[in-house]
């Protein structure tokens, strides 16, 4: 054994325990980076699930079991949406805090892509409405556009960070977002609540379980 444990360090005599210490530390670092991602998936899962169920239940042609007044359903959706955007911004900043260098550019572009794409889709929708897009079709366009936006950006994230969870989530969001239009309005709200909300919640649950299992 080398004389390298004189500074209060635990002696490293067993190669297996040494490797476990090394891998355990790296896993902890990755877990610390992943925790905000799990929270983001969870928050957006709740927002899509509850928010779109509220919108679906706020339409007389929607939820067959009960109806929520529109003046309740729409604000519920908007408040959840705004809260999720704020939470994402805060959590997003925490993911790579204290780090600077080459990857900061990638992270900044990724962060900017949410704002830029979100604004572009909103402007496009507004333009379409100004050109005569009906409220029924606008109800199909906006949520689908945002599901497609999330799906596309997650595919970019998967490529940037070789992240399988973002790849799977991105593909599911693209499929659900595109297919939701066939359900018509307000059926599309139910499709998005279950499909997109469900996908986010399953992703959050899967990552949380895997994290607990130390994988």
């Amino acid at each position, binding site marked *: *054994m080398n004389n390298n*444990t004189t*500074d209060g*360090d635990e002696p*490293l005599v067993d190669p297996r325990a040494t490797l476990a210490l*090394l891998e355990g530390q790296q896993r902890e670092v990755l877990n610390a980076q992943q925790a905000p991602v799990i929270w983001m998936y969870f928050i957006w899962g709740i927002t899509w699930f509850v928010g779109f169920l509220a919108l679906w239940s706020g339409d007389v042609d929607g939820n067959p079991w009960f109806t929520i007044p529109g003046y309740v359903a729409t604000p519920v959706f908007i408040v959840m949406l705004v809260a999720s955007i704020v939470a994402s911004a805060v959590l997003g900043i925490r993911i790579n*805090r*204290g780090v600077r*260098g080459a990857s900061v550019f990638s992270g900044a572009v990724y962060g900017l892509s949410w704002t830029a794409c979100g604004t572009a889709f909103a402007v496009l929708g507004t333009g379409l409405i100004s050109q005569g897009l009906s409220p029924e079709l606008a109800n199909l366009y906006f949520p689908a556009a945002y599901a497609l936006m999330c799906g596309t950006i997650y595919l970019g994230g998967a490529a940037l960070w070789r992240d399988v969870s973002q790849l799977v989530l991105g593909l599911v969001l693209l499929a659900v977002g595109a297919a939701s239009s066939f359900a018509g309005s307000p059926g599309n709200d139910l499709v998005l609540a279950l499909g997109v909300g469900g996908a986010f919640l399953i992703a959050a649950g899967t990552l949380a379980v895997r994290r607990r299992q130390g994988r």
Partner: protein
Amino acid sequence: MTMDELDPVIHASARLKITATLATLPVGDQIAFPRLQELLGMTAGNLSTHLRKLEDAGYVDVVKSHQGRTPATYLALSRSGRRAFEDYLEALRALLGESA
């Protein structure tokens, strides 16, 4: 190869954890001292002591800068530090009969 022959600069639990943590950073990235301290759960004094040994061995690059008026220290594995960590990991796995 025995445990005694492993790189003594890395082969101490605190420095092993430090190098393992720095090795998770992509090449070209640096981490702030307080964040590294948080990820390691070490005291500032203990971390400084071990970082100095790693810096003396040429394994860690220490960049001192300012954020406004506050001094900030950023750290990263040097090229030789990253290579030494990879060699250490390979040697450890070889000891366990695992191929790299």
